[in-house]
């Protein structure tokens, strides 16, 4: 067998593909062939490296060089310089923003230093479309071990003792969930993977499926064996075409090796997986709604109990776990529950994948041990706030979560601490906001999402959230009153107490947490009719400072509605009744004469 002297790993995740990583791969293959190097250099398309901010990523091994923001036309230089002459291409290396040093190796980059990759262990390392590379990384060993021991309860105990909790948001202990499902006898049970990732800004499940689909397949088979299910179903949104494609390839390869199908490892255990597509409705991430959607009914939740473990898909006992939860399972079995439970905090074990987004320097996907502080995540891994602005809040838990302020920066992140702080872990979206974000508008944004995504089955969610949204709209338009603030609070509490499913019960959280943490900002909107962050258009007033205005007429000529009047070389004036607050005059003025009030 030919041994390759170099491996070139190129990110083939959705993010990097959007920046032409496909073309980079093609160029590598073509140019290596032209140089007669195709037998010496292996080109591998991998899953997501996580550092999406600086994509596309190209990593060269064995010298572990990490190139960022690579363009298809850079490939020739990389081959000529790095592969042929052994010189690193300096201009494509990551530059540490603080020290201005070039960092050739990802290990020394702030973004990776504090990370611990368990669920993402293979993403950015193996070719997700090649089962052999997964097997070489101990793939399917956990399944083989579990089947050889042939003791489902023993495996359930391992998962229970590891302390693994559901990564989809709720944080229910996974081992316990399996145990309950295993005890309900039935002729057919189902192991279901929830890949209906719906939080705005979250993409960890997609990246795991794109980067390491076999880890989920293997874990589903293990779970199926434990609860006594022979069928697995993956519910994935059709908006994830690449993840679906790679899952299909992976399932096909696993079948060919006999790792799915009849009599796996000659143990007598049968297990196979089908894919079910969702249409991208947020509520279908709720397990009962998900099951109804898979059955072909409307994606509406039903009251629990009965829990899916008693009466799930086609009224048979079913177990639903999230993608990231599954991705942890094989490692726990291979390395032992003691190892896993040594990571994290007292009640939250292991790691959590977060999608960093918003006003932060290093946008991307990270995996960190539980118990890390928000400060470490935002300033060390995330590289701080963009453009040197001041941190204001971080939103976790998506539309079900809340905003955390500066005072929580040093709180260790885990399920219970985030809940106590008025937010939640959620599936792992983390949106960082700077001082220019208006918190009332943030709450309004999430409510708009919830109103859109509410299935409409129960009244509190269907009508209550709509009223919340309208009240927020009223406040941001400058028509709010102090009574509205009380209304927001009371209505939120009622919705929380009375909504049918998790979506409705948590949807007022963004409102409550912003009122709690930023009451002054609400007051400013309602009492002073001002938006301190300057985001609410209706509350903005553009005026011309006559001392600075020299009457150059630049603003008057640019104004699209002719709201600016004035003689040449004399101070101008804005007619407020005509002004549409587009900000064009503000941009055009060279004399700093336009002020926002």
């Amino acid at each position, binding site marked *: *067998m030919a*041994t*390759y*002297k*170099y*491996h070139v*790993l190129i990110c083939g995740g959705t993010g990097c593909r959007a920046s032409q990583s496909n073309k980079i791969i093609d160029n590598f293959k073509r140019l290596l062939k032209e140089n007669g190097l195709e037998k010496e250099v292996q080109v591998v398309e991998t899953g997501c490296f996580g550092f999406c901010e600086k994509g596309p990523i190209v990593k060269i*091994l*064995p*010298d*572990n060089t990490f190139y960022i923001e690579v363009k298809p036309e850079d490939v020739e230089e990389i081959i000529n310089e790095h592969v*042929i*002459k*052994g*010189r690193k291409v300096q201009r494509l290396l990551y530059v540490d923003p603080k020290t201005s040093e070039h960092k*050739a*190796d990802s*290990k020394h980059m702030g973004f990776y230093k504090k990370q611990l990759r368990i669920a993402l262990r293979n993403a950015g*390392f*193996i070719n997700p479309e090649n089962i*052999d*590379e997964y*097997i*070489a*990384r*101990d*793939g*399917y*060993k956990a399944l*083989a*071990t579990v089947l*050889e021991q042939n003791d489902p309860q023993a495996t359930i105990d391992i998962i229970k003792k590891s302390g693994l909790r559901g990564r989809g948001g709720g944080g229910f202990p996974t081992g316990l969930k399996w145990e309950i499902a295993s005890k309900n006898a039935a002729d057919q049970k189902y192991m279901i993977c929830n890949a209906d990732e719906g939080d705005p800004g979250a993409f960890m499940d997609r990246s795991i499926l794109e980067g390491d689909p076999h880890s989920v397949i293997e874990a589903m088979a293990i779970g199926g064996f434990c609860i006594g299910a022979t069928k697995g179903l993956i519910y994935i949104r059709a908006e994830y075409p690449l993840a679906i494609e790679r899952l299909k390839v992976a399932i096909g390869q696993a079948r*060919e*090796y*006999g*790792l799915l199908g009849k009599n796996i*490892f*000659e143990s007598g255990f049968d297990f196979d997986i089908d894919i079910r597509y969702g249409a991208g409705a947020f509520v279908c991430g709720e397990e009962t709604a998900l099951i109804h959607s898979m059955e072909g009914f409307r994606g509406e939740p039903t009251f629990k109990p009965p829990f899916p473990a008693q009466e799930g898909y086609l009224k048979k006992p079913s177990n639903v776990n999230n993608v990231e939860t599954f991705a942890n399972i094989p490692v726990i079995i291979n390395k032992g529950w003691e190892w896993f439970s040594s990571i994290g905090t007292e009640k939250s074990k292991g790691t959590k994948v977060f999608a960093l987004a918003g006003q932060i320097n290093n946008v991307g996907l990270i995996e960190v041990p539980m118990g890390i502080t928000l400060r470490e995540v935002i300033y060390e891994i995330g590289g701080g706030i963009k453009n040197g602005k001041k941190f204001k809040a971080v939103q976790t838990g998506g539309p079900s979560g809340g905003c955390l302020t500066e005072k929580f920066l040093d709180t260790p992140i885990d399920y219970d601490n985030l809940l106590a702080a008025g937010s939640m872990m959620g599936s792992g979206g983390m949106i960082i906001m700077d001082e220019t974000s208006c918190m009332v508008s943030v709450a309004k944004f999430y409510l708009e999402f919830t109103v859109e995504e509410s299935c409409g089955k129960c009244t509190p969610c269907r009508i209550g959230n709509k009223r919340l949204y309208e009240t927020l709209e009223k406040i941001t338009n400058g028509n709010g009153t102090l009574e509205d603030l009380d209304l927001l609070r009371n209505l939120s509490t009622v919705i929380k107490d009375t909504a049918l499913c998790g979506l409705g019960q948590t949807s007022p959280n963004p409102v409550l947490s912003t009122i709690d943490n930023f009451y002054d900002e609400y007051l400013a909107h309602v009492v002073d009719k001002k938006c301190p962050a300057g985001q609410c258009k209706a509350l903005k007033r553009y005026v011309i400072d006559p001392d600075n205005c020299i009457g150059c007429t630049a603003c008057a000529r640019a104004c699209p509605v002719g709201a600016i009047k004035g003689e040449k070389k004399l101070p101008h004036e804005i007619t407020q009744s005509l002004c549409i607050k587009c900000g064009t005059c503000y941009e055009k003025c060279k004399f700093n004469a336009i002020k926002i009030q």
Partner: protein
Amino acid sequence: MEKIKSLADLKKKREDLQSGIKLREQGDNIEEMIQVKVAMATCGIASGAKQVMDILINELNKRNIPAVVTQTGCMGYCYAEPTVEVKKPGQEPIVFGYVTPEKAEELVTKYIINNEILEGVIPVNYESIEDK
């Protein structure tokens, strides 16, 4: 494709496949590896550096030594080609000159394994910007 029927089957398969990604796993821990650089400029190639590199890779692999072999540009010792630089973890790099294909194996068995210095050591008289 042949089916995998047992844990033993899987283990065997894994061993066969591991060499395919070994290079990547080593690269992840490059600081703990012995780093071997072969000068692969025109002068080096003309003196047989390509062959030397293949021999080094094979010999190291055969003995399961945790080392990574990369190629580099001209180190400036064209009179002593092929030249090979070896950096053991925590030690200063040593550059060996005149590493002909015959001597390549010796480099592995003597210096890399037993720490015996071979003839042809070139005193280091430069600093690389990466050292700073």
